[in-house]
């Protein structure tokens, strides 16, 4: 298939990059779409489903896995939704656009693939009850306990998940501010999944188990024009505590950082902007791109000073919208494992 | 008189106006007479021969052949004259390439309706062509070809035989032999012979000699 064709296609839909910045980077206004409102209480299970009146939304699951021989793996399963216009329609005329990304990372390989679909015909979608998120044959069925499947040209996986803790609202009770200017999204996570299953790799199937983290986010507002990319981590610390943090890079201002500390029982402790510092300490060459693949993270309130290093620095998502996404190993004051995502380096 | 030519003029277009090739030529020949027509190149000998042979018409003057003024004849009249009364032998032989020796010898006689098979066979025999009757001109030597041409000229027993340098394309020995044959056969048929040549030696062998200089008999 023509990569250029789809790159151009996605450029039109999402702007230059994926995830937070990319999704918010389209257009210049949210005219006609619903807007995130502070103080909105999540209503489950309805909010697990799609919010089609919002412009963008995703179901974003990452997992740190290990096989019986002690080899570490990373896994990604993402479903993006975007409304192409505020006006909703049936069948082929649907305004809903869906994109799936999936990947497996091993210490020395990275497999990724993608799918596209439009809403309205049943090829892709999310239903809240019973929970099913799908595009083609990729599925996530069940959100407390469930099954996660993906197939690609050179890999596949079939996993069981079960949540060991509650859903955790990010930001101010789920209202997550993305810049000084006040752009925001609704954002909650499920960082407490146990996950186990089979990865099918070119060399054959591998039985694995580990921890997974689901992010749910929806919004209609673009990021600021000057925001050039984003570095995001979700960490499972050995103590059972979790840390979500991100750094939005700007072409004119210093980076804007946000963090949420999550206790083992699922209580979020949101930190104000600037509390977290993220510093790249090593850069890898990924097909000619300079990508920071080791980070120093410091969170003053927790005496946290750790280093997160990529399991495989070459975990580049070579999809139509491309970015870096892969598992990390955490050392320092609070050792553990986690996932790193970086956009805007291509 | 077999042939009487009086005050014949002929000019051809040249680079600077017309060139008078013949300027009031006159001559006369009786039956059985042999005449050599000599002169340097360009003196008009061949032109005179062609006019006498009905191959071309004079600008003015009288050419009587067998008592008829051929200068007045049209195209078809001259063709009939050539066919019926005159035999010609050219320097280049000019046989008909698609016909064999026998057919070439008989051709003109048959055209004129005077074909005599016995005479033709006799001619071929005497010309030494009996073995070549079924051969085509391209298969014959120069001397053989000229002998065919002589046979052709005499096959119809014409009153007048014209020859234009008949041995000019042959070596001396062959030429002499061919000329001997021609003179012998012409004498046998009683025809008059007018032969153009530039060779004094050959001219001496004919009964009379006329010299053409700058378009006039001198």
């Amino acid at each position, binding site marked *: 298939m023509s990569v250029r064709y789809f790159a151009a296609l996605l450029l039109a839909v999402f702007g230059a990059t994926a995830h937070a910045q990319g999704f918010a980077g389209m257009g210049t206004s949210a005219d006609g779409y619903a807007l995130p409102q502070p103080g909105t209480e999540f209503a489950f299970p309805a909010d697990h489903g799609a919010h089609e009146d919002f412009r963008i939304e995703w179901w974003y699951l990452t997992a740190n896995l290990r096989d019986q021989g002690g080899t570490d793996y990373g896994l990604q399963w993402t479903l993006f939704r975007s409304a192409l216009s505020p006006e909703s329609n049936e069948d*082929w005329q649907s305004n809903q656009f869906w994109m799936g990304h999936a990947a497996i990372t091993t210490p020395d390989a990275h497999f990724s693939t993608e799918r596209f679909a439009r809403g309205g015909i049943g090829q892709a979608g999310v239903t809240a009850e019973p929970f099913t998120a799908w595009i083609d044959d990729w599925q996530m069925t069940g959100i407390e306990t469930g099954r996660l499947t993906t197939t690609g*040209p050179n890999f*596949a996986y079939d996993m069981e998940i079960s949540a060991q803790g509650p859903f955790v609202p990010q930001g101010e009770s789920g209202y997550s501010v993305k810049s000084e200017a006040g752009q925001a999204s609704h954002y909650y996570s499920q960082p407490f999944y146990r996950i186990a299953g089979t990865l099918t790799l070119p060399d054959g199937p591998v039985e694995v188990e580990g921890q997974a983290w689901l992010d749910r986010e929806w919004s209609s507002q673009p990021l600021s024009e000057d925001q050039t990319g984003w570095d995001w981590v979700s960490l499972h610390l050995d103590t059972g505590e979790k840390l979500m943090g991100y750094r939005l890079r700007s072409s004119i201002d210093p980076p804007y950082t946000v963090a949420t500390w999550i206790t083992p029982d699922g209580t979020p402790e949101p930190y104000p902007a600037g509390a977290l510092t993220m510093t790249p300490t090593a850069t890898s060459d990924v097909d000619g791109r300079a990508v920071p693949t080791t980070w120093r993270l410091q969170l003053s309130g927790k005496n946290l000073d750790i280093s997160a290093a990529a399991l495989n620095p070459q975990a580049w998502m070579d999809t139509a919208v491309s970015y870096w996404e892969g598992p990390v190993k955490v050392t320092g004051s609070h050792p553990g494992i986690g996932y790193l995502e970086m956009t805007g380096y291509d | 008189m077999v042939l009487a030519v009086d005050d014949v003029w002929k000019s051809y277009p040249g680079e600077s106006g017309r060139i008078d090739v013949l300027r009031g030529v006159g001559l006369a020949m009786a039956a059985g007479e042999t005449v050599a027509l000599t002169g340097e190149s*360009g003196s008009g000998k061949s032109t005179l021969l062609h006019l006498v*042979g009905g191959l071309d018409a004079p600008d003015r003057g009288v050419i009587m052949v067998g008592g008829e003024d051929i200068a007045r004849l049209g195209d078809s009249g001259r063709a009939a004259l050539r066919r019926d009364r005159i035999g010609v032998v050219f320097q280049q032989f*000019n046989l008909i390439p698609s016909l064999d020796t026998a*057919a070439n010898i008989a*051709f003109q006689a048959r055209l004129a309706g005077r*074909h005599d098979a016995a005479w033709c066979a006799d001619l071929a025999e005497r010309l030494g062509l009996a073995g070549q009757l079924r051969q085509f001109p*391209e298969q014959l030597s120069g001397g053989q070809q000229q002998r065919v041409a002589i046979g052709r000229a005499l096959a119809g027993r014409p009153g007048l035989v014209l020859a234009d340098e008949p041995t000019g394309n042959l070596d001396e020995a062959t030429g002499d032999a061919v000329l001997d044959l021609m003179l012998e056969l012409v004498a046998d048929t009683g025809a008059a012979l007018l032969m153009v040549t530039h060779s004094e030696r050959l001219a001496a062998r004919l009964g009379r000699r006329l010299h053409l200089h700058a378009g006039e008999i001198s």
Partner: protein
Amino acid sequence: MWIAGLSALLSHWRRKPLQLATLVLGLALATALWSGVQAINSEARASYADASAALGETRYAQLLPREGEIPLARYVALRRAGGQVSPVVEGRMTLAGESWRLIGIDPLTVPGDVAPSGANIAGDLAGFLTGGGRVYAPPEATGALAQALDIPVLPADGIAPGVLFTDIGVAQRLLGLDGGISRLILRDDQPLGLPEVATLAPDLDLRRPEQGSDVARLTDSFHLNLTAFGLLSFAVGLFIVHGAIGLAFEQRRPMFRTLRALGLPMRTLVILVCLELLLFALIAGAIGMVLGYAIAAALLPDVAATLRGLYGAEVDGSLSLRPAWWLAGTAIAIGGTALAAAGAVWRVGRLPILAAAQPRAWARASERRLYVLGGGAAILALVSLTAGLFGSGLVAGFVLLGALLIAAALALPVLLHAFLTVATRKARGPLAEWFWADTRQQLPGLSLALMALLLALSANIGVGTMVASFRLTFTGWLDQRLASELYVTAETEAQAPALRAFLEPRADAVLPIWNIDGRVAGLPAEIYGVADHPTYRDSWPMLESLPDVWDLVAQGEAVLINEQLARREGIGPGDPLSLPGAWEAQIGGVYSDYGNPVGQVLVGLPHLVARFPDIEKRRFGVRIAPERTADLARALRDEFGLPAQNMIDQASLKAFSLQIFERTFTVTAALNVLTLSVAGFAILTSLLTLAAVRQPQLAPVWALGLTRRRLAALELARALLLAALTILAAIPVGLLLSWTLLAVINVEAFGWRLPMFLFPRDWLVLGLLSLMAAALAALWPARKLARTPPAELLKIFVNER
């Protein structure tokens, strides 16, 4: 040395401008006809390629429905099973007075190279997918379409003529389709562990990309026909070139000798000769390309009309210049020159410095040549016979045809020589003997031109007989096939019953004409229902059938198929046939169905309706006394407001069918005339070049007592005689050719065999025309001879005056 040598060689042409013109013009004509045909072919093929690339036909495997369309749910189920397939909707619609093929794609799943290169779908995805959508059209058509559509029409390069691109949803709306999908493109990047397509979609037909597009397969034969014609014209042109080169080289033998004697090495001489020829080839090639372009541009609209009428294939009516075409044209010009000159150059390479003492033995050489020609003719005749007896397929058909034609051409001088030898022997009188003998001697010089004439004439007779036979058969068939006097189509499904009720008391019979499109034996086919009515029993053009076949059809126990389908699949009465809808039928009969590119099946109407209740029931054939047709049409218009195009009477339908038929052969006829003109030109140039050589041969005959006019008349008679003999020889060759076309080529190309009819009047006309052409060609040199001044002829006899 090189320059001096080349200029010496070229000086010949300055003195013989006619020979030069013959050479260049012959080569230019050959190149022109060949490259013109190639231009037409490549233009048409490019159009198909665009069209089938638009459908992903050439690059990707496809899943096709056995009948009707693929339901949306089937597509989604396939996607949800992991199959990477992309849906395509296609249909025809009339916009701004023209018929368009509307193609709807899903840009989110389609392989990137299927969408037209010039369409910026990605940059405008929201606009393409939502709102009213967008339509991409060939740039020149956007203006008219913008008026006819309520959504933006955008220009895009790389769209085949007559094709519109849009989103699948928009296409379904515009075509009035209800969620159905025409076909699925199978992407390359299928996921790991996906079951075989056969298991995944056993209900759909898989077509591999190498099977090509329907259009390309259907039109292959048509283009092969054109190519064969181009090749024939090229061959005829090469005869001229060969003659001109041969003569020029013959006349330059003394010059070659002199050059060699002056110290020019043999290699250099041969290279110089080749350079000279290359120069001519390039010049003539360029002229030929311009001519060829003009020919192609003039013929293309007719070809496009033919292809549209006969195959429904859209071809752009305008010609674009492709670099490959220029290259191929130049190559063919050079190749043709090389072919035509090979013998002459080879002889130059073996030329002794000293001339042989004897002039060339023409008679013996030509005798040897006759043996070679006769041998060649015999071998080719054998090849032709072998291809006819044991070969199969279109290529074997053309081998048969080509070998036959060349064998006939090679045999011609042999036959003429034999005839003239007998005539010479039988001739009485010196002039007759000379005439025949001389004619025979002229044969080698004229035989190339005569061979060209034979080729052109026999092609003309063959193709003419084929077309005329076809026309006769076709009109007779139309009379049988178009039995109803009036064909009525209801405007809507709802209107149809009322229409029928209105018609029934007013007409002798109302015969439904209802059909579905499906696939039979893997290719598109039409399945028609026929009512049990004497109209069909009496007049259907049946070729072979089981006894009481109409009863069997009425009872649903047998179906009828057209000849194309029967021949393509090698099936006939008594054989089983799988129809859409898991319908296992038995073939009861085969009928002729000329002009139809696809297979057709006729089934009993009630049985078709029972299996396909949703079939469109709008068309009827009405049996009525012909004089009442107009009144009935008027009544229908008044009662139902039916537009004229929904009521077609038999006569206009016939006229329309015949018009398509005639257009189909317009190109053939044009090429035929061109080929014949080339042959005429060949005769003219041969006679003109011979005339110069002839003088020394004619002069002695003149000197021995023939007038110039008489000689000229004989020369004219000679040319006419040879032309007449060639025309006589061309008739049997043409008939053989025609038989091959009708019984072999047509069957392979179109799927039908036609009876052969003879049209002696046409031959007579053609013969007279050719004689006139030959007479005209011979008149010029003959007149020249008649008017040659004696002084000119006398030069033959003397070198001095």
